[in-house]
């Protein structure tokens, strides 16, 4: 199967531009694992994303400032899982802008599809909220600060399963 090797490509791209230090991608051999603890029909599922977008009010005005890549502040946010896709606007700058666009929220943050699957009985329940965090160049920040905060909120919401969509 032919697919893009992003790690090699990124190194090559930035070296060509004269940067001798390129991005260090995470590299782990051990992999943590929690097997599904109950039948899916009883499981509570959450959606978690790193996509950059803003929530809009009922008149379409932004409810928040756009964020792009994480800083050293805690960056985890939450919105109700029944938030309509029509009131989310992508602010992504790091998708492949020549090939795809971010107009259809469900192509990167499938909240409408999740509700359809729930109605079909594909899983037990949808978490109260969905969770967002921003991609961060600091792996330490993600592993020690933002990641644990997402976990804390998932546990509080009795989440069994998280579906993650990176952008």
């Amino acid at each position, binding site marked *: *199967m*032919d*697919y*893009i090797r992003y*790690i*090699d*490509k990124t190194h090559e*791209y930035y070296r060509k531009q004269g*940067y001798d*230090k390129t991005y260090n991608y*995470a*590299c*782990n051999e051990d*992999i*943590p*694992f*929690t*097997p*599904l603890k109950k039948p*899916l029909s009883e499981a509570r599922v959450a959606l*978690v*994303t*790193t996509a950059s977008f803003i929530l809009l009010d009922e008149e379409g005005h932004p409810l928040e400032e756009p964020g792009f890549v*994480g800083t*050293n502040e805690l960056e985890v946010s939450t919105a109700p899982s029944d938030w309509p896709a029509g009131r989310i606007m992508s602010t992504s*700058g*790091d*998708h*492949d*802008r*020549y*090939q*795809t*666009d971010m*107009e*259809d929220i*469900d*192509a*990167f*943050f499938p909240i409408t*599809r999740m509700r*359809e699957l729930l109605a079909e009985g*594909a899983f037990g329940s949808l978490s109260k909220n969905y969770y967002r965090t921003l*991609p961060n*160049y*600091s*792996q330490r920040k*993600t*592993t020690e600060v933002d*990641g*644990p905060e997402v*976990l804390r909120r*998932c546990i509080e919401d009795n989440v*069994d*399963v*998280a*579906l993650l*969509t*990176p*952008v």
Partner: protein
Amino acid sequence: MSLVARVLEAGGVSTVTFTTARDIAASAGNPRQIFLNYPLGSPAGRPHDPENQRQVLRAGLKLLQEADKPGIIVDLPFTWSEDTTWMGKFMTDEQPFLSDEAEQTRQELLDKARAQKKQDAQ
């Protein structure tokens, strides 16, 4: 995102990550990966194609039920287009990854992250 998946798994939450960058997630040690060979930005299916999006999500739910060990990658059979030249064009002079402004912000944030790392190491 794979690092968040790892924290969740270690904390007792089962995860599936829907990716468009197979090698990045695999290198990070992602617990369960559904790989969709689409451009960056469309990890949950083709835009404006609800049936394709449902198929992607269903594949994730299936993997959750079937995975008996960590690190499984499921390669979905969907192709973005017959013409595969888009893969070669990504991150080239012809199609730079970020706009100039976004690239500058990226470098500033990278510098900040490196400084933080240095500080953490001390």
